[in-house]
């Protein structure tokens, strides 16, 4: 097991080098130049040349890349071109904000999605099953930015009970204030994931409860509750864990639409702004961080399989 984890962690290195190299190449090949974008159409040729020199952009791309990699290894992730800040503390801060949203959204999605899926499966084709699945479809199909704006208008404006946007109220930094700001964006974020999880749980559960061992459990006189919760659920959860893992991994990269609608300072928004400004150090740093976290979440999911299904072992 330990060997497996170590090997998986080591395989992270080539993946990340590949990712940064690709990102670097794409950013370099894309038309548009950070100096030009900073100065807008007003840039004179001399000021552009000066700015490119100041930013180190007049070097060939491979020199820029290896210089950057060399510094990253030493813990110096460079300074953002656009924001003039150190990249590492900035993206760690943004990443933490996205993590808050992801964790809360995943909690909401699982605590509602999984029980709903189980109930639907147990009462297949009942009215409640049908109704739930229609609602799930509606939830899944709702455009997330529209849902976000509706939540803002309903809870922020009409009811006036939750803040509309941002991470905290002016000049406040307490936990309660933070949580109140997290509720609406994580609700918007959770809706889609919740729908997927509910559907996945339902179909996986339906498959499992038709299997022989479940029949055996029933025939030995166990209560239906015990059969479902103790025996069926654990097996049914394996595909669900995969889906949750994928969703969490995806959300860790920050959901750009939700972050825009709620002006939420997450990593997705930072990356989009970075890309539009061709802010190479920021985008590369952020992608490196997000890619590492994605790989780690996948590893965690793989390890969770072994717990859920003892037949799965990693040598």
């Amino acid at each position, binding site marked *: 097991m330990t060997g497996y984890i170590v090997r998986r962690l080591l395989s992270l290195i080539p993946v990340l080098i590949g990712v940064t190299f690709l990102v670097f190449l794409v950013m370099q090949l894309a038309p548009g*130049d950070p100096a030009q*974008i900073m100065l807008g159409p007003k*840039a004179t040729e001399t000021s552009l040349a000066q700015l490119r020199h100041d930013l180190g952009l007049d070097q060939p791309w491979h020199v820029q890349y290896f210089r950057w990699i060399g510094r990253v290894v030493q813990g110096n992730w460079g300074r953002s071109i656009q924001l*003039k800040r150190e990249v590492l503390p900035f993206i760690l801060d943004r990443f933490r904000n996205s993590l808050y949203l992801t964790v809360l959204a995943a909690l909401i999605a699982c605590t509602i999605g999984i029980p709903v899926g189980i109930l639907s499966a147990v009462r297949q084709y009942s009215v409640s099953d049908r109704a739930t699945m229609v609602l799930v479809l509606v939830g899944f199909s709702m455009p997330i930015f529209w849902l976000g704006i*509706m939540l803002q208008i309903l809870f*922020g404006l009409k009811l006036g009970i939750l803040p509309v946007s941002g991470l905290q109220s002016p000049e406040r930094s307490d936990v309660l204030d933070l949580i109140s700001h997290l509720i609406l964006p994580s609700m918007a974020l959770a809706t889609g994931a919740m729908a997927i999880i509910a559907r996945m749980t339902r179909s996986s559960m339906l498959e499992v409860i038709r299997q022989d061992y479940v029949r055996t459990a029933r025939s030995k006189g166990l209560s239906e509750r015990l059969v479902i919760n103790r025996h069926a659920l654990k097996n049914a959860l394996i595909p669900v864990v995969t889906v949750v893992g994928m969703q969490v991994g995806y959300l860790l990269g920050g959901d750009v639409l939700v972050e825009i609608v709620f002006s939420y300072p997450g990593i997705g928004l930072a990356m989009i702004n970075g890309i539009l400004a061709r802010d190479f150090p920021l985008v590369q740093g952020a992608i490196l961080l997000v890619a590492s976290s994605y790989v780690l979440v996948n590893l965690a999911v793989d390890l969770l399989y072994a717990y859920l299904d003892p037949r799965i072992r990693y040598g």
Partner: protein
Amino acid sequence: MYRRKWIVPFVILVCMSLLAACRPTAAPTVPPASPSPAAPATAAPTAAQPAQIPQGGTIIVGLQAEPTSLDSVQISDYNSHRASYNIFDRLLEFKDESTEVEPGLAESWEISDDGLVYTLHLRKGIKFHDGTDFNAEAVKFNLERQFDPNHPYHDTGEFPYAEFTWGMVDKVEVVDEYTVNITLKEIFAPFLNHLAMHPASIGSPEAIKKLGRDFSLQPVGTGPFKFVSWTPGVEVVLEKNPDYWGKPPNIDRVIFRPIIEDQSRLTELEAGGVNFIVNIPPDELARLKQDPRFTVVEQPGMHTWWVAFNHTRDPYKDTRVRQAMNYAVNKQAIVDNILKGTGLLAINPLPPVVWSYTDDLQRYDYNPEKAKQLLAEAGYPNGFSCVFWVPESGSGMQQPVAMGTAIQADLKAVGIDCKIETFEWGTYLDKVIVPPEKAEYDLMEMSWIGDNGDPDNHLYILLSGEQWPPAGFNMGYYKNEQVDALLREARTTLDRAKRTELYIQAQKLIAQDPPWITIDHETQIVVMDKKIKNFKLHPTGPFRFQNVWIEP
């Protein structure tokens, strides 16, 4: 099958109830405006000054995006300009609602007879927020830090405007503790205005030396407000400088919050999370003007939006074709229906707020018949086809795609078949700021926001034949010898009356030989809580909070 029958009505029911639940929230009902005979909401709230001006209170501004820097000499976008402006003073200042200059950190100035040496007499006894003294050395340090690559603190930032603002400066000399001489390489008429622009903000040299690059995150100036904190992605907080050398502000604090999405920013204003916002969705403007809770302040900006012809290509070399295309586009309809009154119809490349502006020139009001006639005269009775470049968005570009599509339809109606190609803004800039042989468009959209309030900043920079890209900004490569001569003379003449005359002549010539299809001048609009009084927008874009007060 019977099981499925009820699903369809059920789905419809769910959808309908969802829609019903949302309708009233999407368009909140607005109480009718109070019928009081007070000034209409659209007027600038230059309320009569009460005997006792209320003190205290906080303005929370909803900005379009996070500032990128709070060091005024490093900024190149409006959000940073607005958040940093009140922390600093400039050598000279623009007067309220005008681009005429008045004393700032320099209380008086002289220009030598040859027009090359500007002597500034500085105010005495001013201290930076960190307690150090403001003096002639500080001025020299701040200016040289920007334009001299060998200055020891040049590497404490990037200075996008240094070349534009100080490129004509030969040297800066300290005469005595409170006198500075700035010597120019050649006569440059608009220079005085440069001393009131953001690169003329003076920061504390001690703080710059101590903080280095972090100065842009913790600025120290002499201005009416002091920097308190900047939480990235959350807020920039400024507080009143009680020791300000001029009249200290009435309000205690100003907070800038980035709220990226236009609709969310408006919702946040209505929910009370902010009390001052920019960039109002045009569809909402009429409703907000009627809302007694808010004041809408408008100010025509130094902005122009146009479609440039590629003058190096046929048939755009022919003046008649360009005139015909100007007649063909219904500019008023674009202003009314797309911009919904957030712009002013443009008949001239120069915005009306800039001195020397004239409207006594050839106009091109919507007239498709005349357009067809001119096209026939030019030898294109059946029109032609063209490639029309449009950015998806961009600073000052308003609604580029919607406006481009309307222009395309109008041109189609007179037989000109344009194919629109859209680009992301960064890519777009890269592809349009190129020498003429590399330009791959027939028509392109562009806009410009004036920097220094001088006509030169619009006419010479955008239309002189000496300003073709990549060295200059004359995108479209317009060249008219007569216009060039007038513009060159005007920028090297110091006498204002003479310059005005030259610019008026130039505007008339430009109108007869149109370089662009000029569409509009964007109006600056902010909406704020009714209790905020005495706020005036400035044509150059910053928010001045020194004289504002908040009613209790």
